[in-house]
Structures are given as C-alpha cells and as structure tokens.
C-alpha cells in the first residue's frame, strides 16, 4: 500500500484529501504514479492535466518525477507552495 495526499487545488480536483492504495503494478516512480492517476479517472485527468504545475513529496521530502515510490511510502501532490 501507499498513502497518497492531495493539497490545495489538487485536493479539490481529486475530490479527496487522501487515499490509501496498493502500489499499482509496474509503477515505481513519482512520474509513473502521476501517469497512473491521470489515467484512472476524470478527476485524476483534471488534477494532473498540467503536470508542470504539480509538485510532489515522498515521505515528506520534496521529490522529482524520477524519484522512486515504494510500498509503504507517503506520496503527496500539490501546487507550487505559496506560504510566507
């Protein structure tokens, strides 16, 4: 299983703040997971329509597209941060 979190407008477009799911067959990277979520349903297609404005973290560290995703990981997707 992996734990996936969504924030800000990605949360709104996904219609959920988080979900637990089995790491999909053949998916081993952040980019792979984005592709899988995009293909899964309309919400995912909408949320990830513009991947260059999506940022990710794996286990609470910022992660790039080629960073690995493994069973047990916490993966988060969100827009570029705007705090401060």
């Amino acid at each position: 299983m992996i734990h996936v979190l969504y924030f800000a407008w990605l949360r709104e477009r996904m219609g959920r703040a988080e979900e637990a799911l089995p790491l999909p067959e053949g998916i081993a990277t952040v980019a792979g997971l984005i592709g899988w979520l995009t293909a899964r349903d309309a919400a995912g297609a909408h949320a990830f329509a513009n991947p260059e404005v999506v940022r990710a973290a794996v286990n609470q560290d910022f992660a790039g597209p080629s960073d690995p995703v493994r069973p047990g990981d916490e993966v988060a997707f969100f827009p570029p941060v705007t705090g401060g």
Partner: protein
Amino acid sequence: MATVRVQAEPFDAGAELALLLAGRTDVGGVGCFVGVVRNAAGGRPIRAMRLEHYPGMTDRALERIAAEAEARWDLQGCTVLHRHGRLLPGDLIVLVLAASPHRQAALDATGFLIDWLKTRAPFWKQEEFADGDAAWVEARQNDTAAAARWESETL
C-alpha cells in the same frame, strides 16, 4: 538553536524576540521579518486568507530551512513561526527572527529564511474575496528568483 512552529493561533512578535534573547548577553543584533495579510490582491478586495498546509511536512521543512540558515551564518538562534487556517487582513502570517553577534549576518539570514520559506515550506494560500469568491494564490516567479539567489551562493 532554532524555534520552529506552525500554529493556528496568533503569535506575539515581541514575546518571541524576548524569548530568543532570554538569558543571554552575547547577541549583537536580531533581524526580523513579519508577513501580514493584505486587504487586496491585484486590486480586488480580500475578505480573508486561508492557509492550508501539509501538517507532517511543514515542521520538518521549517526545521531544515532554519538549520540551513544556521549552517550559512554565525547565528545564535532563529525563530520561524507560520500560521495556518483562516486569517483576516492585518493578521500576521509569518514571523522570522535571526540573532547574531553581527548585524549583517542577522539581516542576511532573515532575508534568506523568508525567501526559502516561500519556496520550500508546504503552505498554500487561498484568497477569499469580498464577493465570496475564492482563488488559490499562484506561485510568483519573483519568489522563485528570490530564493534562487541563495542557491547560487551555496558551496
């Protein structure tokens, strides 16, 4: 030693300064930045600012940012506080303090902390307009550029 906190409650900048200086007499100067909720964005009046964050990650991110400042400058302590939740115009959002024997280090570390926080701490602002509309704030090129200044100075 860094003090890092993410909270819904208001903070008291004067009390945080006193805390940073408490019990020591070797500090020469403290740099400080306070971010405030503005009443308008792009000329459109704002009723409130909602701050969403990634609870598990924000503390870690702020601690790292503080540790990076302490590695780069001769600091005797720093404080990074960030609020989340629904804030009103005039409310304080963020507080950065950096204490050093030397004023330039205190000032530079303050600028660094706020610049890095803006691009590396997982917070997202949503503006609630006077007419009830709400919009997520987009990341500004400016902020990325401001943070990048500090990257080129690494190592």
